[in-house]
């Protein structure tokens, strides 16, 4: 990639130092919005860029900001740094290596909705990152970039970090707000949505770290420049987290619309041992399993193309599964994850993930019959569309697609007992 928007630290050494960041026009975008733009003008600019939420849902960011209820105050901004989806490790790199660009994005979002306080909710495991951000925030305060009367205006802003404590569900925005309020991280019934009823019942913008990190560059270089990357409906670049069976796993910032083949083979170096890609999960453990046909490999990774494969791009956490892996083992892994992480608030998810885990344990340990495979599909279908939040829906994506698209793996399991011994069989 010739030009980075987000992972600029890869070409600019020491970008995590305030002085260096400022030498590269750091905080000029924040200065520009506070001193020359009305909050609504900032929102219009972000709308025009076509930026969509990078946490998974792909919702237009400017529109989300515009929904903030102007009749109720104060407003809050909460940055979602809970990064807990298996297969996702991009926000971590941004916050570790390019923290000021992220913090500037938080500050601009706060100005756009006239929030005077912003919280960064980090997963508890990011203890060291939170400590780093606290230090950066203190430096910004000392440099007059946060605090009272910013850039001689009447605008004031404080940013605070807040650590979660190991709960995947807190990545769901309303669960995150509950957690930030000191309660159990369980999702709220929506509507009302956070832009009208968020933190402490006040209008709140919740954005992912990667989303916010795009904003300073959009302000600086303009919406048209941003739209020169990616596709018409999915503008910009995206950090693709590549993991699983590839030679070079890692973060790759590429224009939206890059193909799976390009990511896996050109950037990732292909599959070790000359094995074939069997399945792809494009959105971490929450993904449907994509059958890795030639056509699938040539599909552009953007918000409009991936659904054609019966899947979603989500957070673009691409897990590569090769032909030595049995799909029932994949479900064994994802279902153990989701049953552990179900928050327990709504019955279909709490009970459904529990029973799916029991059934897959039976299948995986060769103590099952064909009826169990049928039962697994039945339980999954009954969860569909009945949950308070997306976690329950996520838990069945791999199950339903796996049973449908890789039925051979399950049939072999139940008819041949132990069957052929696969690497993870």
């Amino acid at each position, binding site marked *: 990639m010739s030009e980075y928007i987000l992972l600029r630290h890869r070409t600019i050494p020491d970008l995590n130092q305030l002085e260096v960041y400022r030498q590269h026009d750091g905080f000029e975008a924040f200065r520009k919005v506070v001193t020359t733009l009305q909050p609504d003008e900032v929102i219009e600019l972000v709308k025009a860029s076509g930026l969509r939420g990078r946490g998974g849902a792909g919702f237009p960011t400017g529109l989300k900001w515009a929904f903030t209820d102007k009749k109720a105050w104060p407003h809050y901004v909460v940055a979602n740094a809970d990064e*807990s989806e298996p297969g996702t490790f991009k926000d971590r790199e941004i916050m570790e290596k390019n923290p000021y660009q992220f913090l500037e994005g938080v500050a601009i979002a706060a100005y756009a909705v006239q929030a005077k306080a912003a919280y960064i909710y980090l997963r508890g495991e990011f203890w060291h990152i939170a400590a780093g951000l606290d230090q950066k925030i203190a430096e910004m305060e000392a440099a007059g970039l946060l605090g009272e009367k910013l850039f001689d205006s009447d605008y004031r802003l404080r940013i605070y970090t807040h650590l979660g404590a190991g709960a995947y569900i807190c990545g769901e925005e309303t669960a995150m707000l509950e957690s930030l309020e000191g309660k159990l991280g369980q999702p709220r019934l929506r509507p009302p949505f956070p832009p009208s009823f968020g933190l402490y019942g006040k209008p709140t913008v919740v954005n992912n770290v990667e989303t916010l990190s795009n904003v300073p560059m959009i302000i600086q270089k303009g919406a048209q420049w941003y739209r020169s990357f990616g596709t018409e409906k999915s503008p910009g670049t995206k950090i693709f987290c590549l993991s699983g069976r590839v030679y070079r796993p890692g973060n790759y910032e590429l224009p939206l619309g890059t193909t799976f083949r390009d990511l896996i083979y050109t950037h990732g170096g292909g599959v070790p041992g000359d094995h074939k890609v069997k399945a792809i999960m494009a959105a971490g453990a929450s993904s449907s399993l994509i059958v890795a046909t030639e056509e699938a490999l040539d599909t552009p990774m953007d918000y409009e193309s991936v659904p054609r494969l019966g899947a979603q791009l989500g957070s673009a956490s691409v*897990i590569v599964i090769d032909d030595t*892996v049995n799909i029932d083992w994949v479900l064994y892994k994802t279902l153990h994850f989701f049953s552990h992480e179900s928050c327990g608030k709504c019955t279909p998810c709490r009970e459904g993930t529990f029973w799916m885990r029991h059934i897959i344990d039976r299948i995986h340990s060769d103590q099952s019959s064909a009826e169990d495979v049928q039962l697994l599909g039945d339980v999954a279908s009954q969860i569909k569309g009945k949950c308070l939040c997306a976690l329950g829906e996520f838990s069945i994506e791999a199950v339903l697609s796996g049973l449908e698209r890789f039925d051979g793996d399950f049939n072999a399991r139940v008819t041949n007992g132990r069957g052929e011994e696969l690497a993870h069989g």
Partner: protein
Amino acid sequence: MLAEKYTDEIVTILNKYPPDQKRSAVMPLLYLAQREQGYVTRQSLNEIAAILEITPTEVASIVGFYSLYYDQPGGKYRFQVCNDLPCALRGADEFLEKLCENLGIKVGETTSDGLVTVEAVMCLAGCDRAPMFQVQSGEGLAYYENQTVESTLQLIDDLKKRNPQS
């Protein structure tokens, strides 16, 4: 008592949140308590409840819900190995099994000297550098990535030397 030992830190934490939303401080205060004793004691639970003007039951529910809080003492160092799907595709299950075998414990158990507890945990956002784990202790949280059983046993040896009394 937390309030006496960490007066300034508690004030800093409370100042992060609006004065009428003190309850928001429950998670950072629990971390503070846990840093002190390795787990949340009954006494600190009551103390946090008093500071925030909520019931001890409400504080206990937070400890129970979130997996990084403990209500029981464990090893001085908790080795938490991710064996979710992406890490398992890079050998995390085999790593975990061999590590435990070498230490003579099962997953979830603590070595006889009380130094190390090995646990399997959910995704830690280090999928590209598996096998990987975090070490949770009174010193905070640290990540160890691209690990082998040998490098991990070496790390445990170093910890043993630093903690001769254990």
